[in-house]
């Protein structure tokens, strides 16, 4: 019997797990995929939003601004790449100037500090590649960028170090309510828990319905005040966002996150450096039906290419190293759905976490952990270590520091991913951490190996070998991202029938 089961190991689920690990309770995170950070959390803009977008008074506004402040703290505690580079909302038409004022006032109402409207000259000094059409911009120095994979992994590792259990390849398939407890079947295992947190991303509406369907009449009470979610639920509309990721050769094209002030012609796309030194351009926003449709489209990519030029000149799209699409968990009311489902249910929703969900995650983690710990009556632990040390990144070190690591472990001297300069020691470290990497993409999220300009062309076979060696896998068991994504299917000539004379046990 667990005190808490968290459904979903995305950035929200892992933030909640980390914050719950402060408390004296048993927590298990169940995840349908093979690793943390496999859904919306891995395919987004990787932006730390300042908080001027959300409607004042909304949960989104409150958690964004609080999350922004916490993000830079957590990044230090958890050794996550994060850079408060600041963001600019660029106005490209004199007619739309008033829009900047509206944003500034909204941001101030939300409690965003140091917002300022800057004129073209100052803007040009900050961003030499800004569009010739740009007339002014809203400058938000608290905006920034973060490594969404690194953040999610770090929170999960810190949670695990403080006693949280993780179960992967464990989709929730059945739920029952008995004696004030939940029985949850996840990945074929029957688990019992007192409380459940639904952090299932684009599937959070389905998970909500599954649990609510198992509630008896006695459990349900009318919605009271405070953060209470009605039982009748909500509907998540997957909203697809498509992106270009450009090589590090383009990473300096802008220095801050550049948004476009929406105009009569519509919304633009953002152009931003990433913490890994790349340039990210996107996203589109297209509502789709299929919650698995993370495929890019010719139309979507063309739209990103066209719109990027509205704010930034000469975006070097020919430097593209990959394109990708993510699905935001959108719901029509456009606010986060956070709270206990009405009544004495022990069911907590953390749903509709769309942008600025990544930024808000530390605040979301705190908010839900407080609610859930209160429900299960778990006091704070006397001792809790909220720090975590990341995998050393040799490409960030001086030659002396790198050399010192090589003396400690020669595997730091064996460069596996040549484009991003990732050593064997880093990959081995990623595999043996808890929760550890078991696939090529899991290693990519933790080390950035295969994420360079050759996109794994040279290092894929080498990483496969390391996974085989460290985890005792056969080559056919190594996957790109879990079961069904095997990288090789057999051995040479294994389907070619041997000539009759060679057949074993054949007639003489």
């Amino acid at each position: 019997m667990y005190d808490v089961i968290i459904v979903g190991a995305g950035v929200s689920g892992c933030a909640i797990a980390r914050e719950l690990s402060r408390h004296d309770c048993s927590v298990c995170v169940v995840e349908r995929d093979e690793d943390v950070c496999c859904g919306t959390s891995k395919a987004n803009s990787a932006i730390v939003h300042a908080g001027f977008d959300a409607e004042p008074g909304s949960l989104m506004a409150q958690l964004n601004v609080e999350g922004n402040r916490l993000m830079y703290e957590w990044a230090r505690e958890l050794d996550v790449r994060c850079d408060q580079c600041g963001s600019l909302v660029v106005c490209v038409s004199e007619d739309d100037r008033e829009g900047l004022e509206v944003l500034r006032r909204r941001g101030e109402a939300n409690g965003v500090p140091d917002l300022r409207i800057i004129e073209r000259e100052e803007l040009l000094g900050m961003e030499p590649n800004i569009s010739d059409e740009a007339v002014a911009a809203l400058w938000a120095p608290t905006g920034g960028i973060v490594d969404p994979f690194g953040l999610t992994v770090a929170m999960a590792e810190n949670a695990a170090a403080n006693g949280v259990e993780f179960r992967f390849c464990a989709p929730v398939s059945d739920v029952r309510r008995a004696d004030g407890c939940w029985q949850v079947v996840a990945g074929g295992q029957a688990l019992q828990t007192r409380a459940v947190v639904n952090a299932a991303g684009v599937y959070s509406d389905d998970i909500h319905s599954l649990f609510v369907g198992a509630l008896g009449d006695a459990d349900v009470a009318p919605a009271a005040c405070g953060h209470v979610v009605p039982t009748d639920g909500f509907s998540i509309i997957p909203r697809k966002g498509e992106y270009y990721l450009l090589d590090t050769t383009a990473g300096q094209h802008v220095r801050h996150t550049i948004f476009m002030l929406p105009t009569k012609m519509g919304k633009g796309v953002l152009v931003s450096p990433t913490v890994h030194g790349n340039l990210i351009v996107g996203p589109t926003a297209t509502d789709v039906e299929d919650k698995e449709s993370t495929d890019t489209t010719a139309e979507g990519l063309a739209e990103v290419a066209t719109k990027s030029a509205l704010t930034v000149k000469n975006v070097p799209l020919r430097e593209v190293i990959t394109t990708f699409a993510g699905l935001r968990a959108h719901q029509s009311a456009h606010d986060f759905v956070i709270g206990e489902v009405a009544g004495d249910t022990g069911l907590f929703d953390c749903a509709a976490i769309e942008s600025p969900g990544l930024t808000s995650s530390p605040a979301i983690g705190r908010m839900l952990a407080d609610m859930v710990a209160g429900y299960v009556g778990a006091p704070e632990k006397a001792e809790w270590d909220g720090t975590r040390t990341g995998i050393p990144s040799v490409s960030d070190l001086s030659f002396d520091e790198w050399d010192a690591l090589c003396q400690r472990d020669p595997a730091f001297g064996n460069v596996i991913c040549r484009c991003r300069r990732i050593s064997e020691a880093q990959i081995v470290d990623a595999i043996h951490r808890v929760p550890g990497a078991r696939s090529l993409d899991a290693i990519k999220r933790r080390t950035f190996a295969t994420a360079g300009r050759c996109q794994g062309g040279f290092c894929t076979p080498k990483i496969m070998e390391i996974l085989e060696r460290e985890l005792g896998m056969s080559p056919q068991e190594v996957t790109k991202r879990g079961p069904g994504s095997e990288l090789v299917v057999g051995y040479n000539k294994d389907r070619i029938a041997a000539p009759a004379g060679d057949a074993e046990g054949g007639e003489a």
Partner: protein
Amino acid sequence: MAKTIERRDVVIVGGGPAGLAAAISAHEAGQTDILVLERDTQLGGILNQCIHNGFGLHTFKEELTGPEYAARYIERAAELGIEYRLGTMVIDISPERLVTAVSSADGITQVEAGAIVLAMGCRERPRGALATPGYRPAGVYSAGTAQRLVNIEGQMPGREVVILGSGDIGLIMARRMTLEGAHVACVAEIMPYSGGLKRNIVQCLDDFGIPLLLSHTVTRVEGRDRVEAVWIAEVDERMQPIAGTEVRYPCDTLMLSVGLLPENELSRDAGVQISPVTRGPVVDQSLQTSVRGVFACGNVLHVHDLVDYVSEEAAAAGANAARFVAQAQAETEADRGIPVVAEGGVRYTVPSFVSPQLMDDRLTVRFRVANVYRDHFVSVYLDDERIQHRKKRVMAPGEMESVVLRRADLLAREGLQRITVKLEEE
């Protein structure tokens, strides 16, 4: 880092075909203090996974496999006692020719080089660089990655294969996958001609009945976890897919052979000027880059079609590097010489500068053409005077071409401003 900095006359970055030929040639030119730095666990570079034959026809007048071709150079280097370090990756080259490398055995080490030969080779253009729409499942491989899995590891990347791009590695892999028991449905090529050698189209596709779909491309990749199908459409003259021509090919593997890119990140760090056309260093008649004492050869300089030409070019680079060391930097600051200009269907030339005073009696200038040309002339102009005019029955982008410049011709013209290589219809 309390390590001493070594001093070596010639440091060669890369122990593939280019690096080996350069090392041997530098040695034969009289510089014996040579160090080859190779990141892999053995010498030979990409040749080690090229187990098909057809290498060495020009150099050795016989057909060798890739490993056999490499072995000839590895053995020769061993005879000469040329020193090399394996598992050693160069991570920085300074304009002052300080080479920094890392290895498991020695950690970070630094070598001050009298001359440097860049021979790092090239990499494959990945799927991401094409921005092909669709999912990003397992089963999308660049042809060279698949080649390593099959030829070195003995592992099958898939059973039902579609190949995008008709570069030589893709053509070779079409045959290899067939021989290993897979079915290759087709090779799609966006251009109206193949980017590979004619002989590979005949021997790797035609002989196995594998269709080559010219002016076709992959428009979508299906399959969330593993490739389930790709969609192939015909393209118009602007290379845009033509509506209504899409055909779905069920498959578990998409292999890409869509171009090779010289790997010049280190060169850039050293301040070497890079050509936007070749993506390799801009070099003069001695294959010296814009940084004094730094030479380049092989696929890091420009992508070659035949390894024989790599060896030939690398031998020149090695000898020139040796000569540079011998002259003990007596030369004055290099004036870059007379520009060699590529025009009318010639995409680029290597070298792109020539100093007649400093060149050998004969200098091979290599180039590639931009399209398929039939019955065209390759012409060389010294300023406005045409001095060479040679008819070629067919020239294609997949095959490297060359002209030879004679020192005497160049010296005979006083005040020569430019040398032009171009294609002409008559």
